[in-house]
């Protein structure tokens, strides 16, 4: 093989193909309760810190700021306020499904009444006039629910 040919070599890449690394992530006892409430009762719950009294959603085991374990579940409203949101226009491969996520869609941080933190979710509208900071929203549940965050279909702008 002469030198010229070496320089002109076609640069190859190796595809990972359809390989995947399947996982079974534990949701934990607090998260499982949250998902079961969504699935069975269309209710949203949070968890309250015994020390600072902040109510977190989704529930988690530890209040990071107080460093104490949490256990008290509290019911939350299915209505809340948009803290921040954006209309996503660019396409990308959703790693959860492996296919292109349809755009545009609106992604929002919803502060549910009764909670101190936000639940991140979709809104039902991509109208910039409707999806605004401070707008009121209400959860819309799927008919068939499986114990998954997507049992909430989206939040409807009121």
């Amino acid at each position, binding site marked *: 093989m002469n030198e010229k040919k070496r320089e002109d070599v076609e640069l190859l890449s190796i595809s990972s193909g359809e390989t995947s690394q399947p996982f079974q*992530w534990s949701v934990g006892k607090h998260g499982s309760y949250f998902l079961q409430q969504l699935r069975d009762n269309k209710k949203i719950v949070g968890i309250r810190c015994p020390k600072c009294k902040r109510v977190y959603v989704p529930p*988690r085991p530890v209040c990071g700021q107080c460093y104490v374990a949490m256990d008290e579940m509290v019911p939350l409203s299915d209505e809340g306020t948009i803290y921040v949101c954006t209309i996503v226009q660019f396409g990308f491969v959703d790693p959860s499904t492996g296919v292109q996520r349809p755009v545009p869609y609106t992604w929002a941080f919803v502060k549910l009444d009764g909670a101190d933190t936000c639940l991140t979710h979709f809104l039902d509208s991509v109208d910039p006039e409707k999806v605004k900071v401070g707008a009121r929203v209400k959860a819309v549940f799927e008919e068939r629910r499986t114990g998954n965050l997507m049992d909430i279909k989206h939040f409807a702008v009121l």
Partner: protein
Amino acid sequence: MSKIAIVGVGQTTCTSSREDTFEEMVFEAATKALADAGAEVGDIDNVVTVSNDFWDGRTISSMAVQEAAGSWGKDVSTVEGDGTFGAFYGMMRILSGSFDTTLVVSHMKGSESIMNLITNAMFDPIYQRGLGIDATSAAALQARSYMAMSGATEEDFARVSVKNHGNARNNPYAQLPLKVSVRDVLASRKIAEPLKLLDCSPIGDGAAAIVLSNRKGLKRFKKDPVWIKGVAHCADAFNLGYRDLAKSRALKAAAKKAYKAAGIQKPLSDLDVAELYDAYSYMELMWYEGLGFAPEGKGYELIRSGATGMKGELPVNPSGGVLSSHPVLVAGMVRLVEATLQVRGEAGKRQVKGAKTALAHGINGPCGQAHCVFIVGA
């Protein structure tokens, strides 16, 4: 060196599948270590977490556990590798003068993914992965090459398994305490020649944590310090073909440095107890040689003579070792936790009487590519 002390240790039980989340396990280990030290999270100046994105199925996996590790508002960092390497970094952060105390915590849920796929991903995607190689098949290559070099037999490997699974019966945290015979091990299911099921560690779930302090920070803690007398780590080449798989020169190099700092001249007699990373039975024999417990190729003599049994000259893995519980990344830190408990005389039924100086060992990469050696003492 005796500049940095271990003042608190915590470990969860290891099981084949824990139902709690990473956060819950880390919180359990970290709060146990704090309670053991007689300290609160406010006594901790900085945090190092240990995790791996592949095993956790999450990019920046360390992010997921920071609240549970007590990191809020603190200076934190994270190591991807065995927990002993995380402990090493936690120690350096104190030695730098920036902090007096460090909490190091490591977690693993091997039950959530498929070990063969996760460890296949540590091999080169262009030249090796397609061959289906994983941690176990690579280890089998190493075991074969070690047998050819040393004359160790499959019976010798089985003896390690019998000893360690037996020791695990004294350890309430262990995943697989077993009363088995050499014959049982030899008859267990073939995994990859020459390794049988009982030559291989069970990948499982667990978490561990330690609290480190310099002399200045000691007054915050109630526990008597166990000092880090010497520590070093070293990595060999990645490509298996570039290494002499039968001899661990990286372990030799790390041990030499750690021994020098700790003033260890004859490890077999100077050390009172050792906790080694025996992911596969044959590894323990190889590590005997790398650590200078036995001459090259003669590791099997120690297991045949019983020198490394509970009543031997240098008990190795009184906890049952990694063969009895293998939460990857956590396993090396557990060795350090166990070494600390031994020096304190708090190892319960697995205590080696009068242990004053202990060795803890962690590995990283395929076939023990990198090794970390800690010597701790009162």
